[in-house]
């Protein structure tokens, strides 16, 4: 076979568990990445990310045969081995779980190589498999900008590992320690998510949001289910947890005996008990996370820490790391969950295996699809939508003016973010000074639980005067106390907020909207929540955004340069032109 020139393109793929995604690197730079759910509109879509992959290739203007390498974010046979060993260990209790898992594995997951070949017929190179936690670790370390860092991954489970500690030096990354299944902080948190009546692998962040409403009076009770060692490692009492052998997370009978309450059903009222359990769980989780990072610091004595894996999205724990741990600098990969594995496996190959040194700093996460003004104009005209068209500064002033008039705005501009947070390009924004906006956006726009808090976006140059934090937080991954008293819609019960700071370099248009709002009101902060309805993935295209606008109480929709005001349009009449997907509960 004729050897072709290297192109520098590496494709990373994650799929077949939850949150399938694709990422394309060009010479180590993330040039395109997206989750499959954004295209298929199926939340946490786990299937092979065909559409996300095609977007990446189209964005770069290349074909499958132009790829140097394709990587997958875990080693499937090792994972299968773990399943088999576990089913032998728990025999005969695991029959139902075994039947469900084996059908999936025998029909799909064991044939990943074949599936790749079928979906990527024009790619003739090898498919490369990077261990799950190494993929997580690589996503964090290789985009941290650090030359020497401790790297901690905290996740549910990969092949065997559930938690790892390693070190990155230069372009080399090595995991030294691991904890293995079933002792998993991610699964422990998910088990309580299930117990509190929320959806596993999806709604863990709701438990974190619920915690400030409760008192941590069940810490001791929870600690009876988990033995925590001085070095942060822990052992779960598996009499209480059922995920090894059952289709549910916990032994419901044992949990009821232990806590005195049965598992909450998702339509049942949240009692003070549930809030107290959430608060207690959060406290225990933070204690473990802090012990683990202290142990990592003791091992490597470096100032820098990289964090990844699903538990790294627990921004309350992250806030405590920056305040209380011995590390001076912290980097968390913004898509710390499984979708980020698509980035990590490609980066690991590029840096560690192929030996490249360059491109070690994450510039931003606006690496998803963008839509052209011409296409949006055509779409609006075809549907007889009344709109205003504005350019540059004028647009920022118009949007800021509407915000200052207490209008709730759907903001759709530029390239979509990669990761679970909307950071100004697929966001719903509102005035944080108006307390009612908390309930209004929760109940009438996002149709979600009223207790859930909203995050503020603050101009980076005003960050320290508004919040008790000493570093920028561009990816909304840190929680800190609010200093001022005039932001009721973004200040949680415990006076905290999950902050996004934005600078002109990171997102100029978004920054300028807030800057104009600041000029009008003296407030450099706005509410920012993801542009989606309950149970729906964040909007991807202008059509998704427009449908979201029609289905909710949103006042204004911004689609790139176009501003659509509800007062100038008849929503009911426009609705007749569209069919709407039904989304499940999140």
């Amino acid at each position, binding site marked *: 076979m004729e050897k072709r020139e290297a192109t520098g393109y590496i494709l990373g793929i994650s799929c077949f568990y939850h949150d399938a995604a694709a990422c394309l690197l060009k010479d180590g730079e993330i040039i395109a990445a997206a989750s499959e759910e954004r295209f298929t509109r199926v939340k946490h879509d786990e299937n092979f990310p065909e559409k996300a992959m095609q977007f990446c290739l189209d964005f770069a203007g290349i074909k499958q045969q132009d790829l140097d390498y394709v990587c997958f974010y875990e080693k499937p046979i090792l994972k299968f081995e773990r399943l088999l060993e576990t089913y032998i260990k728990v025999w005969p209790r695991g029959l139902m779980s075994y039947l469900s898992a084996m059908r999936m594995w025998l029909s799909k997951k064991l044939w990943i190589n074949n599936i790749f070949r079928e979906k990527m017929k024009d790619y003739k190179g090898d498919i490369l*498999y990077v261990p799950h936690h190494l993929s997580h670790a690589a996503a964090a370390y290789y985009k941290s900008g650090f030359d020497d860092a401790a790297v901690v991954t905290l996740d549910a489970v990969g092949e065997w590992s559930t938690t790892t500690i390693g070190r990155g030096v230069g372009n080399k990354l090595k995991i030294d320690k691991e904890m293995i299944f079933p002792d998993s902080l991610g699964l422990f948190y998910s088990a309580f998510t299930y117990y509190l009546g929320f959806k596993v692998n999806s709604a863990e962040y709701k438990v974190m949001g619920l915690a400030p409403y409760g008192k941590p009076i069940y810490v001791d009770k929870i600690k009876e289910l988990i033995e925590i060692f001085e070095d942060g490692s822990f052992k779960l009492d598996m009499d209480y947890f059922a995920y090894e052998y059952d289709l549910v997370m916990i032994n419901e009978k044992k949990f009821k005996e232990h806590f005195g309450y049965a598992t909450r059903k998702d339509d049942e009222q949240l009692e003070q008990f549930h809030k107290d359990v959430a608060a207690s769980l959060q406290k225990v989780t933070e204690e473990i996370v802090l012990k683990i990072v202290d142990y990592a610091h003791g091992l490597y004595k470096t100032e820098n820490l990289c964090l990844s894996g699903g538990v790294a999205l627990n921004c309350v724990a992250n806030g405590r790391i920056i305040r209380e741990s011995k590390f001076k600098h912290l980097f968390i990969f913004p898509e710390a969950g499984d979708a980020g594995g698509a980035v990590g496996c490609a980066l690991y190959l590029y840096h560690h295996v192929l030996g490249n040194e360059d491109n070690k700093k994450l510039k931003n996460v606006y690496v998803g699809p963008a839509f052209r003004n011409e296409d949006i104009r055509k779409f609006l005209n075809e549907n007889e939508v009344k709109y205003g068209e504005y350019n540059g500064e004028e647009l920022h002033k118009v949007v800021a003016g509407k915000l200052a008039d207490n209008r709730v705005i759907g903001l759709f501009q530029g390239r979509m973010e990669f990761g679970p947070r909307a950071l100004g390009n697929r966001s719903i924004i509102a005035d944080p000074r108006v307390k009612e906006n908390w309930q209004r956006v929760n109940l009438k726009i996002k149709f979600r639980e009223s207790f859930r808090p909203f995050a503020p976006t603050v101009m980076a140059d005003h960050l320290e005067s508004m919040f008790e934090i000493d570093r920028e937080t561009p990816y909304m991954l840190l929680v800190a106390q609010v200093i001022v008293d005039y932001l009721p819609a973004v200040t949680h019960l415990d006076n905290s907020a999950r902050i996004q700071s934005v600078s002109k370099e990171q997102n100029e248009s978004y920054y300028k909207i807030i800057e104009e709002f600041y000029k009008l009101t003296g407030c450099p902060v706005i509410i920012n929540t993801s542009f989606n309805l309950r149970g729906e993935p964040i909007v991807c295209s202008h059509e998704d955004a427009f449908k979201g606008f029609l289905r909710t109480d949103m006042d204004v929709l911004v689609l790139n340069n176009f501003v659509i005001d509800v007062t100038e349009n008849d929503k009911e009449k426009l609705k007749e032109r569209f069919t709407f997907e039904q989304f499940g509960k999140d």
Partner: protein
Amino acid sequence: MLNILKKIKKGLLWFSKKFGYVNSTIILTIVYVVFFGIYGLLKKFFGLFAKKQPKVMTMWRQFETKSETLEDLKNEF
């Protein structure tokens, strides 16, 4: 005529899917009960004679998956 054939094909597909589901359930259950069972029971039986492990003070262990070279990454294990 074509419509009838299409309906028959659809019906056959539906039936084979259901039949496959039942078959796979039976086969997988036999594998689980017999093979996993024998191995699981033997493991438990010999486990009774194994030396009692001392109480552990840490759950950390060495990470050993080899992933240094392109050849390592070609393995699915």
